Structures are given as structure tokens and as C-alpha cells.
């Protein structure tokens, strides 16, 4: 049972929105007392996903939630775009695969950096990625 303690929504439309968003995530992570290593991991994963959303999904919405489960607190981030979607998710999750000219580590790397990772995509109508990082995870 995951309880939502705090909610915050941000529109991501331009590249300039990435840094303010990252700072906001950092703020929440600091508030629940997350360590510097986990904070950096969460922020980096968020940065990857938010850049993906901008590059491939044409921007979208990012939801920051402070959640609690039992005695553990954590941050849940949900990225929703209305882009073209991903047809082959297993392929997109493979290391080194990219349709752009990037390193191809964004999605698989982000999955390794967080505790829970969930991706849903409908070709033609958009993609939703949800990640959770526990304070002591």
C-alpha cells in the first residue's frame, strides 16, 4: 500500500525546463532525507526520462510524488507524453539501442538507477514512464 503524501506537477515543454525540474526533484528528495548517492541516482534517472520525453515525445507532463510504504519513504515520478509512442518496448530497453544519435543508455540506465520502473506505451497516443526511488533503496 503506497500512500501519497505530497504531489507536484510540472509541464516540460522546452530544454530550459529540465534544470528547474531536476532542482525540484532534488528539493523533495532532500526533504525526505534521501542520501546524496540515491539523490544523484534519482536526479540522473529523472534527467534521462525528461530528456527522452522532450526529444521523442515532444514534451509532456512530469508528476512528482512523495510516497510512503510502511516505514519507508520515497519519491515517485511519472512522465506522461502524447508523442508517437514506442512500438517495441523490449528493444527500446536494450542497452545501446537508439533511434536518435545518443548513447542509447537512457531508458535501460534509468531502470538500473531506480527501485521500481514501469513503462507503458501506446503507439500513436503516447508514453507513460513511472519510477520510484526509496529513501534507503
Amino acid at each position, binding site marked *: 500500500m503506497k500512500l501519497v503524501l505530497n504531489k507536484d506537477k510540472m509541464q516540460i515543454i522546452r530544454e530550459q525546463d529540465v534544470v528547474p525540474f531536476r532542482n525540484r526533484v532534488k528539493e523533495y528528495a532532500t526533504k525526505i532525507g534521501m542520501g546524496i*548517492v540515491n539523490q*544523484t541516482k534519482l536526479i540522473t534517472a529523472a534527467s534521462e526520462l525528461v*530528456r527522452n520525453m522532450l526529444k521523442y515525445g515532444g514534451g509532456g507532463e512530469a508528476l512528482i510524488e512523495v510516497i510512503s510504504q510502511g516505514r519507508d519513504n520515497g519519491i515517485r515520478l511519472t512522465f506522461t507524453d502524447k508523442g508517437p509512442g514506442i512500438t517495441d518496448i523490449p528493444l527500446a530497453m536494450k542497452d545501446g539501442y537508439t533511434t536518435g544519435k545518443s548513447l542509447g*543508455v537512457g531508458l535501460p540506465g534509468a531502470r538500473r538507477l531506480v527501485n521500481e520502473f514501469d513503462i507503458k506505451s501506446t503507439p500513436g497516443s503516447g508514453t507513460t514512464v513511472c519510477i520510484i526511488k526509496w529513501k534507503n533503496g
Partner: protein
Amino acid sequence: MKTDISKLLQKNHKQILEDWMTNQLADASLREDLMSNEELGEQSQELLSALLKSINDKNLNDVQSEEFENVYEILSGISMSRARQGYTPRETGMFVLSLKQAIIGTLTKMLKNDPQALVDASFKMNNLLDSLSIMTFETFIKSREEVILRQTDEISEISTPVIRVWDGIVALPIIGTLDSSRTQVVMEALLQEIVESGSTIAILDISGVPAVDSLVAQHLIKTVAATRLMGAECIISGIRPEIAQTVVHLGIDLSNIVTKASLASALRHAFGILQLEVQKKQKDKTVR
């Protein structure tokens, strides 16, 4: 009888200006520190004359009319200079809005006996002055944005200092996030300095980069590759423990780049490559 509003206003030019100045001077937010009352009076006089000159019975309904172009020009000049001088939007807005009060006030006095004409006239003047105030805000915000843009440029320029730390060694501390445009500036500055100083070693210090994601890493790899093409060796320093862990989890391969935890150890490595040695000065034994 139909009243000619424009004639009426022109006749009361002086009264309106007086009222307007009184309104402005009475406002608590008046910034005497930024502009003297005489200067304010001149500005007000200039704008009001232009407005009353271009106003006529026909164009009152049409705020887009070409005859108002002169007014718009003066007004945008005023609001631009105010934005640069550091006026708040409220103070700038009050400038035009207090003119509205003065004009409507005069109309009310003049058309006391003709309520229908008064309603009609105030409606038209309202429309006209509203569009003038919207214009003021648009220009005000635009000039503010220009200020911000200029500052962004300045920041990206001053934030990429290339330092000659030793003969043949240049260092470049990167502070803030590395995006595509930043990388371009950094790369240009670094490569230029390598040519000018004839350096063979470049140290990129990323202590001031808050997070290294795959995009930043890709930009770093590109910069290193370009430096190598120039015949110089590139060392990345300032990798903090949390950054190291994140890069490993992310799966970015930086193994063929020389990386160091601190600028000091990068410098030591550079000395090693250049076969230099830094030693503590030894005391002369005969003295002791």
C-alpha cells in the same frame, strides 16, 4: 446633438495633463529615485500631445488605426526605457492607467448634462486606453526578456574560463549543466586555447556539474575526442563519489578516458606525462 469627443479632449488638454500629473504624483509607488518629476512631466506631456493629436472622431473606435502608430511608438519607447531602469510592471502600468483616470474624469465634468454621450465617450476611451496599456505591458515584458537573454549569453561566456595552469597544461572548470549550446562554447574555448598556448594536456574539471546523465556524458566524450584530434591529451577531473556510482549504473563507458577524482591528482598525472617533478625544497646541509 452629437458631441465630438476628440475636440472636447483637445480643448481640455491642459486640464487632463494637470490631473494626470496629480494622479501620478499622488501614487504611493512613484519612483522619484529613478526619474525626476520634471522628466516624468515631459514624458507625460509628449505622450498626451501625441495621443490627442492623432485622435479624431473616426478612429476612436478603431484602436488598430494607423494614426495611432506615433502614440504606440512613443509609448513603447517609454516602457522600454522603464524596463531597463528597473521599474516594476505595476509602476509602468500605473503610468498609462492613471491617464485613463484623468481623461475619464475630464469627460465626466464636461458631459455632466449628457449622460448618454458620457457613457458612449467613456466606453470608447476605455477601449483605447486599455489597448494602450496592453501594449505597454507587451513592450515592457519584451525588453525584460531581452535583458534576460543578454544575461544568459554573458553567463555562458564568463562561465567557461580556460586557465593555463602550467606550461603546456590548460584547465577548464565546468560549472552548471552541460547542454548542447554550453558544450559548443566550452569546446570552442578549449580548442582555441590549446592552439594558442600550444598545450598538450587539457584538464576538464566537472566538480561544478550537478549531475552527469547520458547527454552530459556524450558531450564530454565528444569534447575529449575533439581534444585528441588536436593532438592533446584530455583528463577529466572532479568526479565525485555519487557521480561515479551513477555513471556506472547508467552504463556509460568512460574507461578509455583518463579520469581523476580531483584537479590536484589530474595535475599530478599531467606532470607525470610531461615528465616534470615537483619537490619540496631541501635545506642546505652545511647550515645545520
